[in-house]
């Protein structure tokens, strides 16, 4: 029955497609479908026939302009089409992508080829054919390796299948074309970036605009056919200097929108530049922080990044299968890991929250599965991993988080991470709660982390499962009422579960971080949203720093 409905939908959309798609896109989709069925049909008699093939074309249009110290650093645009092929031999239970201990599951060897930008059906099919031939030979070889490696090994801890069965998805959008005026941005940057030159102590000062639309066409042998736009517009500011003791200091700020009109105005950019430069100057003169153990507040944006790094990456489903991974949360399913007033949700289906645009939004993931809201932590209890089509024990299905950049194989990746709380107090109260806690612990001050730039987290089994988050702007808040003092040069360290258990309250605010997360399936846009959180005990250690002095001569 389901099949019949799908077929009707398909016909309906196909009709729609005929009238609204450009000839070029139509030719491309036809070519993909024809080659896909030809390979599935004709390889059936082979020893290892493919049981699944997907073609994903990234038709990428991008443009950007960067200004450095008041001069245009680079400017331009480009367009190209990449074809990624996921070709699997074996069956859903065991296929060529099966991860063996010696690592036959190779992320970098994913097949990727360029396709002509126009061209008739035959020439496009010829390119697809050539790429598929290569992909098939590689997959058959990998599968052979998997079989022989499996024969030599003891039973695996996780015996779940290599690939999940999913319902096909049908969705079509014609390719959107955005008219981006780079000259306008170049002129704006030329005007607002004068401030870089006025601050001679700055070593780097850049502001850039970038736009890209990934028009993604996905077809697979299960019947999925998806064509979707994924436009993104960014403005990024980056400033760097060096303190007198050699420490390299930098700050950055990203603005994100789904259209050009959602980016900030010239005046807002001017203010943002002034603010970031002033902050960096203050940071340059700030004293070094000492090692510290005690209460701290992570402001919304910092807390979002903190959760992304130390929680998000550990609940990416496929990691629970990796025999080398520590699998921190695997044994905590349905157990409490956070205070009961907190939820953590991954929601790629929403575009904005409280007026903030969220860059982790998408309609379908890179395995053709519809984006889904996933409640990972519900009232403090761990409920769900984020899943691609690589199943794990107790999680046999994807929840629409199989993501990648072109040239990579999709794995479970984060989308919009949202930390929710039911125990919210005004920020001023949260601050007072921290001061009270400091007093209780007999401490002179507490810390407020305003921004963190990211961090790293160890998830392997052979090293301690610690995290190291890299704060950029940190304030000391004195219990005796002295003004807050900016400090620099610390890393935030700890182990995830202990830190989580020390969260005592949250504020009623919301901070949003938009950025690109890099991992084994390439850079993908993500967002992290959180209220400010109060942690009763954190640890900081001194940051490693460059021994190089600032420039010997003054700026010319």
């Amino acid at each position, binding site marked *: 029955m389901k099949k019949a409905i799908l077929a009707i939908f398909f016909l309906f959309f196909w009709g729609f497609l005929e009238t609204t798609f450009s000839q070029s896109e139509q030719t491309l989709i036809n070519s993909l479908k*024809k*080659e896909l069925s*030809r*390979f599935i049909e*004709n*390889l059936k008699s*082979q020893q290892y026939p493919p049981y699944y093939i997907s073609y994903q074309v990234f038709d*990428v249009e*991008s443009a*950007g302009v960067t*200004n*450095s*110290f*008041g*001069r*245009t*650093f*680079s*400017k*331009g*645009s*480009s*367009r*190209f*089409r*990449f074809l990624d092929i996921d070709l699997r031999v074996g069956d859903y239970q065991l296929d060529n992508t099966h991860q063996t201990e010696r690592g036959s599951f190779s992320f970098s060897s994913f097949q990727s080829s*360029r*396709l*002509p*930008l*126009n*061209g*008739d059906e*035959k*020439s496009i099919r*010829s*390119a697809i*054919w*050539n790429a598929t*031939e*290569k992909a*098939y*030979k*590689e997959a058959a070889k990998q599968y052979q390796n998997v079989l022989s490696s499996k024969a030599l090994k003891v039973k695996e801890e996780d015996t779940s299948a290599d690939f999940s069965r999913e319902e096909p998805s049908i969705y079509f959008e014609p390719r959107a074309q955005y008219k981006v005026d780079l000259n306008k941005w170049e002129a704006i940057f030329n005007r607002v970036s004068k401030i870089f*030159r006025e601050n001679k102590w700055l*070593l*780097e000062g850049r502001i850039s605009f970038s736009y*890209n639309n990934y028009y993604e066409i996905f077809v697979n042998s299960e019947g999925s056919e998806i064509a979707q736009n994924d436009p993104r517009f960014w403005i990024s500011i980056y400033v*760097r200097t*060096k303190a007198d003791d050699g420490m*390299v200091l*930098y700050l950055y700020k990203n603005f994100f929108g789904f259209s050009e009109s959602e980016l900030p105005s010239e005046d807002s950019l001017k203010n943002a530049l002034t603010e970031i430069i002033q902050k960096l100057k203050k940071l340059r003169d700030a004293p070094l922080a000492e090692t510290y153990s005690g209460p701290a507040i992570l402001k919304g944006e910092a807390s979002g990044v903190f959760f992304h790094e130390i929680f998000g990456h550990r609940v990416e489903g496929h990691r629970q299968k990796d025999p080398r991974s520590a699998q921190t949360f695997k044994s905590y399913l349905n157990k409490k890991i956070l205070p009961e007033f907190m939820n953590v949700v991954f929601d790629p289906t929403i575009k904005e929250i409280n007026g903030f645009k969220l860059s982790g939004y998408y309609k379908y993931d890179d395995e053709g599965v519809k984006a889904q809201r996933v409640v990972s932590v519900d009232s403090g209890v761990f409920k769900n991993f984020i899943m691609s089509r690589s199943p794990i024990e107790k999680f046999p299905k994807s929840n629409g988080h199989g993501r990648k950049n072109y040239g990579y194989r999709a794995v479970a990746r984060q989308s919009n991470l949202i930390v929710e709380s039911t125990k919210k107090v005004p920020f001023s109260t949260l601050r007072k709660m921290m001061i009270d806690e400091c007093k209780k612990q007999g401490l002179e001050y507490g810390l407020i982390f305003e921004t963190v730039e990211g961090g790293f987290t160890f998830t392997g089994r052979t090293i301690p499962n610690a995290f190291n988050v890299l704060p950029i702007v940190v304030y000391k808040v004195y219990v005796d009422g002295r003004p807050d003092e900016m400090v620099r040069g610390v890393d935030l360290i700890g182990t995830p579960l202990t830190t989580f258990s020390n969260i005592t309250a949250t504020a009623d605010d919301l901070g949003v971080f938009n950025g690109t997360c890099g991992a084994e399936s390439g850079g993908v846009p993500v967002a992290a949203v959180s209220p400010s959180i109060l942690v009763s005990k954190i640890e900081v250690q001194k940051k490693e720093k*460059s021994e*190089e*002095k600032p*420039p*010997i*001569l003054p*700026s*010319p």
Partner: protein
Amino acid sequence: MKQFRCLSILVLLFLIVITKNTFGISHYEILQAMRDELKRSMDSLFIETLQKPYYIEYSLKVSNYYQANSFLGSLTDSSQGKKVNLNVKVRVGDYKLDNTNFLDFSFSFFLGGFDESGSSRNVPVDFDYFSLRREFWLATDFAYKNAAKTYSKKISVLKNRVIKDTIPDFAYSKPNKFIDTNVNIPTFDFVKVCKMLEELSKIFLNYPIINSSIVSFEHFQDWEYFVNSEGTEYIKPVFFTGFEAAGTLQTSDGMPINDFYSAYSTVPNKLPEKDSLEKAIVSLCENLVKIQKAKTLEDSYSGPVLFTEQAAGELFAQVFIPNLLAQRSLLSEQGTQQLSRYTAFQTKIGGRVLPEFLSIYSVPLKSDFNGVPLLGYFKVDDEGTPAENIPVVQNGYLKTLLSNRTPIKRILSSNANDREGSPMFGNIEIVPDRKYSKSFNELKQKMMQLCKQRDLPFGIIVKKIMNQNLYSTIFPVISPVEYKFGREQNILNVVEAYKVYPDGREEVIRGVELKGITTQSFKDIILVGNRPYVLNILAPLVSSSFSSGGYIGASVIVPDILIEDAELRPIEVDFPKPPFLENPLLMKN
């Protein structure tokens, strides 16, 4: 083609295409900014506890580029833009002993670990006097600190070792001023070029047996600026234009067969016309079809081999000429490092390296040969030393090696062959004694005569050898099989070769490689042709084995050569299976 190709594949998303090509700043202002910042650095750049710089050099490259690829009638990508890059070298100590020629893993391998840019930096494309000085200021600061640290480290290594090598680190050079701005800047229509590429790439549609193909174009208009603290200055234009086409297929037994056509020149209007390119591609396709049907050698062949035109050029360019470059061994904490590649002639000056009827000249000052533009033409090398045409091998005997300002034991001064920071050849002319120059038919006859003496049923003519640049840039993109990088030592892939029977009949063979050709083999050249051939190539830079190379335009003028004894063997690896499905181009619907 150039290194840029690899870069464009890797960072496609960030590929920036610049629309503004005109200079907003004059040649004079650029040089003045470099002079002013260099002077300030020489006068006041030092840290009290460390040595002052005794030499600083600044170079700046402003590059306008155009690049496009086409596949079966449609572009796969095209870009045009501008890039500006500067490079600063600082020397601490003195000419006898300074911070260079020292391999320091701790610094050179981890530059910029704390997000600090290095001594080579990208500069805003829209730079002005002040922004240029600013970029040079930051690069000089970085270069000086590194030079001073390396110098201290080198001194401490030297204190603890008995070093036999007392060759100076740097050769002094008289100041030289060379300003070459009075040149015609080539204008061309990039849109038209792209259209032409699409049309030319359509030719492959007529040959569905070819699995994959590419037609590619690249044009660079570079301006190079240089000043050093000795007073040398130059401005020179470096133009490059390249057209390449390549096709690849798999035979029924799985053997991959590749062929290519390339034409390089300085300016676009010196490339062959469109109809010649068309003919070249048709001939490339026909050739692939012909080779695909051919048989391979049943067994290894050892005997006389005649190398003609491109094959003779590639043989010299890949095997012999790289040995003519002076190479300095580097000192490290572990002692003096051994040179690893192309070292055959480092101690051979005065010795015989070729038959006495052959001489080799380095002729960078030749801009063309019989009307064909030469890619390795330059008037001043990259250290600002005026170029000269010199004999390198005279009547078979090695006279010198091509050097830059880094002395080696036998060559203490530069003969103006610094290209991109290390000695590299530009134009090389192989000149035979007329008595030994014969027509193609005479060479063929001589080969057959030798075959008869050795009871060989046939001789072999090699007409085309795989080019190193195309092998590692174009072919990985179009290869129908998983691509194997890196090549076995002393193995050359033959693209086109023929068996020649005693009755003069030629029969094409496929899937052979040349084994064991070394510099020694060139002594066995017994006769050469009387038709010099110009091979323009992008040659891999021969620098230290620790640095990754790029490619640079170079030319080899070479006659056909007959070698008394060479070994060809059938390629004996397991080939991947041939395509499972037929190429859609072959399908009727």
